């Protein structure tokens, strides 16, 4: 891994978040993802600004594209995005929109915003990596529990389970924002589709790391990361 001159830590994230303004509507959602994003980029993902085009890199797909401030803050802390760009958040000349675009930011794997697209796109990526027998490369997707309302996720969950997409890990940030809830639990509903499942505290970095690191031979894995309701 490249050592970054400006390597920043978790403690810098509040300051980086503070450089962005304006996205009032989505601000609480942004912060629900902060700890999981940090653990992914700090401890899990085999990716750096120098390896954004490496075929062997891990792919991280932020499906829950709204509320991207936490994502941009982590990308800035890890050197993917210049810190100076954060202040322009959402501006006409900024590459950092209220919904991220892979075509504008190196290292961002998908353009997202409309809910329910990241997991289905990840299926295609995982299949292609399987076909290429690309060693290493894993595919991580972050969705919200409310986002799971979108039926396209369930098309992808059912198919990935049956296809045994071992490369695929989905993190569900669960702040109980789904209007009609998920009786029986999100993890149970995905387990019946053939996935490996685990629930963790979405604020506890060691727990998040352990949950993301569990082996899941021959099947996809879901981590339900619980955070405070309404965060």
């Amino acid at each position, binding site marked *: 891994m490249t050592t970054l001159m400006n390597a920043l830590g978790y403690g810098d994230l509040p300051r980086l978040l503070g450089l962005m303004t304006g996205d009032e509507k989505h601000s609480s959602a942004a912060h629900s993802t902060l700890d999981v994003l940090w653990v992914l980029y700090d401890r899990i993902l085999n990716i750096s600004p120098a390896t954004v085009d490496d075929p062997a890199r891990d792919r991280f797909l932020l499906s829950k594209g709204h509320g991207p401030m936490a994502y941009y803050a982590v990308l800035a802390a890890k050197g993917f995005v210049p810190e100076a760009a954060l202040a322009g958040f959402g501006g006409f000349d900024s590459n950092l929109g209220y919904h991220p675009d892979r075509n504008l930011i190196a290292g961002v794997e998908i*353009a997202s915003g409309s809910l329910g697209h990241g997991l289905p796109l990840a299926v295609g*990526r995982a299949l292609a990596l399987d076909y290429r027998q690309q060693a290493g490369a894993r595919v991580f997707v972050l969705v919200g529990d409310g986002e799971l309302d979108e039926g396209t996720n369930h098309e992808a969950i059912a198919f990935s389970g049956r296809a045994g997409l071992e490369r695929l890990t989905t993190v569900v940030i669960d702040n109980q924002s789904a209007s009609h809830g998920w009786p029986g639990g999100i993890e149970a509903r995905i387990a019946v589709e053939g996935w490996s499942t685990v629930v963790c505290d979405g604020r506890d970095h060691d727990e998040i790391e352990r949950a993301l690191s569990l082996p899941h031979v021959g099947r996809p894995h879901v981590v339900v990361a619980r955070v405070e309701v309404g965060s």
Partner: protein
Amino acid sequence: MTNETMRQRFYRVTADLLDADLRVAVVLADIGVGYLEPFGVFGRHPRRAINVGIREALMVSTAGGMALEGLRPIAHSYAPFLVERSFEQVKLDLGHQGVGAILVSIGASHDWAEGGRTHNSPGDVALIGTLPDWTIHVPGHADEVELLLRQAALSDGPVYIRLSDAHNREPRLAGATGIDSVRRGSAGAPTILAVGPMLRPVLRAAEDLDATILYTATPRPLDAERLRDAVTGTDVVLVEPYLEGTSAGAVAAALVDRPSRLRSIGVPSVELRRYGTRQEHDRVHGLDAAGIRTRLTAFIEHHRAAEPSTSA
């Protein structure tokens, strides 16, 4: 192989591409699986020949994910499910990601009239046409399907290929991607541009008319240069096998620097609530040779009547 339907040719060529081109993938949503199975592609290419089940949105998104990894996916289904049900996936998981794929539909307009509105999709070309950068092919013959599919497999862009049961007697490969001149009328005579399988009824409808007849299997991007060169008069008739007027804007834009009158002939935007056959629907919509001729002559004569110097 000359009696192959467009659909049969598509499956055969797709199987061949999967074997020959390591970049090509095919993603299906049940429809088409039974046709591709005899070629053995699912066994030979388990991660490149994919059936996601009856999940058309996932089919298109999966194609998008594969394209993001550098593959050249073909996604295929009935037009209403491929284009209309999955439209946001087409818009976001291909175009907005900055990647392309080859979408191949069957069930053109009212090809399966017996199936009713749920299986008819006359608006597909207009819909895809709202998205930037798409190439839209409406082949008129199985040989054109093969040429266009092989060509699309070599590119990276977004390509929509619309297969139909209706077809022309002979392929016109020169008109596959551009505009081909089928017949020259006298100077100033009306020009008729037939798209895809509409050439066959157009040739019959205009058999004894003094008109220039043009053909293209690619309404988008429309070959504006050849159209401008071929049009010598003011009267232009556009005959398309889908929603009437879909390419009218492109034709008008090509002829913007000269006086012209355009008559669009295509499938009207109506809910017929009738079953029956494709031929019966063509007749009701005025898309058979007789219906096209009625509108052609009315259009041409109206012009003559409107110009005293030529009506005498």
